[in-house]
């Protein structure tokens, strides 16, 4: 069979989602952000939610998320996405409201907003990219940076006595009465991508069902910040990140 007999519209089993804008993403090669953007676009399409979805973009590498995912978006100040999402959802309860945040945004400068939005049980979904480093500003230490991990501001490795410990913020959020679903996923293999997609979809459905706050942590890579090629970064993540941030549900009520 000739390859041109296979590549026909009726044989297509995987396509670029329509809600992912036809543009070049600014992310570094191999960046997990692209995969998660694609999943969100797929899920919103499958839920027929493009007319009622309102995303909240963070400050960090995903600051331009609104240029890629074709739904209404508000760009939040650094760390304030859960506060922004709170108001959107309270004022427009029929909308599907989600934030998209990195570890610095969600677990450092925005810790208060994260904890309190979840504690109030705001009916929002939080997608949390944890790559243990500040990507956009050039690879500085994040709250989730592992002990011993080298970054631009921990050039000799993170030390507990100098920098404190890596923050497993999803475990904190899971303890809050307002949080209905807290899970940790990754997107480094096709199987992981499928599970991450199911998790984000569940979080979005919870938002519409009014079940409370959902948080989906995606343990991710930052090839540029980690100074590793993408495939090796995935290996490094499996070896080191999953120990501190094990994959699986932390809460599901």
């Amino acid at each position, binding site marked *: 069979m000739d390859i041109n*007999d296979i590549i026909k519209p009726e044989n297509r*089993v*995987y396509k670029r989602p329509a809600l992912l804008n036809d543009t070049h993403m600014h992310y570094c*090669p191999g960046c997990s952000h692209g995969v998660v953007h694609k999943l969100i676009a797929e899920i919103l399409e499958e839920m027929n939610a493009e007319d009622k979805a309102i995303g909240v973009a963070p400050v960090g590498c995903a600051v331009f998320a609104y240029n890629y995912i074709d739904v209404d978006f508000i760009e939040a100040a650094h760390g304030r996405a859960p506060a922004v999402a709170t108001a959107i959802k309270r004022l427009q309860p029929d909308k599907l409201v989600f934030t998209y945040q990195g570890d610095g945004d969600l677990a450092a400068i925005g810790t208060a907003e994260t904890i309190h939005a979840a504690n109030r049980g705001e009916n929002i979904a939080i997608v949390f990219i944890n790559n243990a480093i500040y990507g956009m500003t050039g690879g500085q230490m994040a709250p989730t940076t592992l002990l011993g991990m080298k970054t631009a501001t921990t050039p000799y490795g993170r030390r507990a006595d100098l920098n404190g410990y890596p923050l497993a913020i999803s475990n904190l959020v899971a303890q809050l009465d307002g949080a209905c679903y807290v899970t940790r996923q990754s997107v480094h*293999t*096709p199987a992981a991508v499928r599970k991450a997609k199911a998790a984000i979809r569940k979080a979005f459905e919870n938002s519409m069902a009014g079940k409370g706050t959902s948080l989906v942590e995606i343990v991710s890579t930052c090839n540029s910040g980690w100074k590793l090629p993408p495939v090796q970064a995935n290996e490094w993540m499996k070896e080191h990140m999953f120990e501190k941030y094990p994959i699986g549900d932390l809460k599901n009520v």
Partner: protein
Amino acid sequence: MAKIRGAVTIDEEKCKGCSLCVASCPADVLSLQPKEVNNRGYHYAFMSSPEKCIGCASCAMVCPDACIEVYRVKEP
């Protein structure tokens, strides 16, 4: 038994040559162009062994730039 045949198309200009698709392919179908680069200077991915493709979409799922589309047929 019918044999599954697959093929992928790759948006060469969107590809950043991260090679995650290459690593995730269970059938060793994909490679990065050894010499050719796209307009942004990346060695983009291509089907170096197209006859092996089973259309499983593993490559497309892990592709961060959504530049892979997957096709699949059952060969009679």
